[in-house]
């Protein structure tokens, strides 16, 4: 890979914190954010635990200085993206080219749900202000306008791998010389649409999820937004800042097995991980930590685990799924976990796979169960796999 983009700044809002320092603190203190539903208005409240951002829409709108009528995903996105730019020291109006590449899966669906409550009974009813930001791209543009980014705007949507794809789209554009800075990542808010969708698939755990555990019973949904500022050398010079890490490899493959289920042998995950290693020009043994996709469903964890065995056996890096902290944040998950991967490199930490008890009988390895400190971490692999067979792997390396 030619000039590897640097990571100059990060921002995040998730169930375990409203900013980057709060997330790091929860991660090291082993404090999960999944709990009984408080803000999402669903009939499944009290029955399905979720990883909510611990703020009402009013509080989020207030923090951002925006209207509470905006989709929750846009409010989350604006807050996390603003933090990433501030962290990088990026300033509006700088002469270099800045692009914004975001991701989400359901755009302004939370407001569309309100609209449809009325509209489904009376086609002249429902407030149009509730559907004007329905599109995925609308959520991105609300954020781009909030931040003043105009050179390039785009949105990726490949289900649960969406923001991993947004991250490497930005990396690719920097490498091709089309951008100097790329603000990349994703956002998704909890909605009744997704909660009920996953519930009909019968893959939601009614207790707190247990990724990669023999006795796992499914995933918990979460929400959040996370962004990183990628920069080329010219961009880093302008920021006058030491980078956190580099984007050293990425790959995308398709499982081509089933619309929602992963192939039992993990074809897509295997191809994505292998190609990302090739892209980074490193070997499996060079990986110090894998931030697993690790949703906690029967199907994902065995597919991902089998692919890891095939690729890494017999030397396994340390691994964990941080979804046990945040829940599965869908379109944001690739970016949330990319931020955690970079925090791991920056602070020499390996975050634990919370609540892990029993190793999966099919796999010869198990995840890390307590926060490991003072680790030397050169290369981290982060996996994101989604509906439609979309599988992506990112590799971050110490700068």
């Amino acid at each position, binding site marked *: 890979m030619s000039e590897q983009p640097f990571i100059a700044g990060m921002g995040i809002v998730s169930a375990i914190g409203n900013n980057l320092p709060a997330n790091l603190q929860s991660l090291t203190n082993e404090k999960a954010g999944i709990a009984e539903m408080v803000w999402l208005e669903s009939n499944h409240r009290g029955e399905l635990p979720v990883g909510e951002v611990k703020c009402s829409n009013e509080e989020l709108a207030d923090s951002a200085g925006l209207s509470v009528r905006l989709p929750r995903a846009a409010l989350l996105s604006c807050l996390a993206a603003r933090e990433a730019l501030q962290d990088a020291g990026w300033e509006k109006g700088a002469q270099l080219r800045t692009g914004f590449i975001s991701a989400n899966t359901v755009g302004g669906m939370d407001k569309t*749900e309100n609209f449809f409550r009325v509209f489904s009974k009376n086609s002249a009813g429902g407030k*149009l202000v509730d559907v004007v930001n329905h599109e995925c*791209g609308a959520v991105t543009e609300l954020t781009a306008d909030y931040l003043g980014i105009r*050179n390039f705007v785009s949105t990726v949507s490949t289900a649960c791998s969406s923001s991993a*794809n947004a991250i490497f789209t930005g990396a690719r554009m920097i490498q*091709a010389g089309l951008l100097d800075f790329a603000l990349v990542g994703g956002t998704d808010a909890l909605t*009744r649409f997704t909660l*009920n969708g996953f519930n009909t698939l019968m893959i939601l755990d009614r207790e707190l999820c247990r990724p990669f555990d023999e006795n796992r019973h499914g995933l918990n949904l979460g929400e959040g937004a996370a962004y990183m500022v990628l920069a080329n050398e010219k961009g880093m010079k302008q920021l006058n800042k030491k980078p956190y890490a580099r984007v050293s490899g990425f790959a995308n493959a398709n499982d081509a097995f089933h*619309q929602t289920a992963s192939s039992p042998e993990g074809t897509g995950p295997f191809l994505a991980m292998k190609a990302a290693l090739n892209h980074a020009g490193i070997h499996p043994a060079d990986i110090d930590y894998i931030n697993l996709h690790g949703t906690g469903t029967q199907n994902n964890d065995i597919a991902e685990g089998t692919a890891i065995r095939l690729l890494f056996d017999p030397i396994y890096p340390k691994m964990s799924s941080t979804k046990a902290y945040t829940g599965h944040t869908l379109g944001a998950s690739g970016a949330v976990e990319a931020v955690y991967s970079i925090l791991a490199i920056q602070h020499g930490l390996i975050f634990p796979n919370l609540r892990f008890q029993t190793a999966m009988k099919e796999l010869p390895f198990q995840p890390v169960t307590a926060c490991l400190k003072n680790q030397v971490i050169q290369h981290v692999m982060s996996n994101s796999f989604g509906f439609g067979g979309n599988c992506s792997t990112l590799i971050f390396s110490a700068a």
Partner: protein
Amino acid sequence: MKAYIRSTGNISPQHSLNTDSFFLTRVKTSKNFFKSLEPDYDDFVDSKMIRRMSRIVKMGVAAALTCLRNAGIEKPAAILTATAYGCLEDSAGFLRKMIEFDEQTLSPTAFIQSTHNTVGAQIALLLKCHDYNNCIVHRAFSFENALTESILLLQEGIGPVLVGAIDEITDDRHTILSRFGLYKKKGTLPANIAGEGAAFFLLDKEGGNHPQAILRDLQTIYKPEDSETLQRYIQEFVKKNGLNMSQIDLVLTAHPGNAKKDEVNDQLLKTVFHENQCFPFRSLCGDYPTASGFALWLAAVLLKEQKAPIWMEGMKFPLKNILIHNHTADIHHSLILISAC
């Protein structure tokens, strides 16, 4: 930044699957929406699979398979889909049921097929294609950004790339967008009509046998400050590609193609495009965010055939360079430059 268009496959309100029919007959509509002329899908996919697919998926899959057939290749090295609205029929279907049944006893089928990447996923599944697969969903930049990504992949040595633009009209979309005042009302002057379509392209670094055209460059312009700035962008774009405006033989414009006033387009016709031959492509496909997919198909067909459909009176040939200018509500402007091989 260039790529060969090796082949196309397009399902649209026109006879776009069959060039001969397209050149003979122009389809018109008296309504304020323009739906695609859909083929017999049994010619493309096993009928059992067809029954499970929603309309947008069927259109997308059939257009993609047509494109591959026309190039004579089985599998591309990458599949990129672009859609602004995604799978609306299934999204709204699940939403309505969720409300009606108060979040209880729902079936997963509509939800499973509601994700924006469903078309690209189904193409990969049918082809057993494990390679690169992405889905861009950025309003009226969806297709343009997918094209940019395709060209970057080709530069990295990944090709050929199958890239397509897909959006569907549903009753709910039409009702809601009509309430925003986007389309003409009964008895009023002609105005925008809603459109849809699925246009796929096989892009490659090399032309292969009989490529259709060369995609030379493209650019998106987000919320230009004013018409003068936009005009400057257009002139710079053409110049950057070693051309001047007089060498643009045809401009495919975003005009609705009738009497509706469109200040943004009118201003361009009076200024940068004033000496150019222009044609309003949306008069053939209607208005939808990924309509530039239809425009690129039209440009590729005209460049290859070097003749006008019999219903397109007065079009001057030969055509060497075509510029597509698309815009939606003066927010999303895009420029695509395409040339004869």
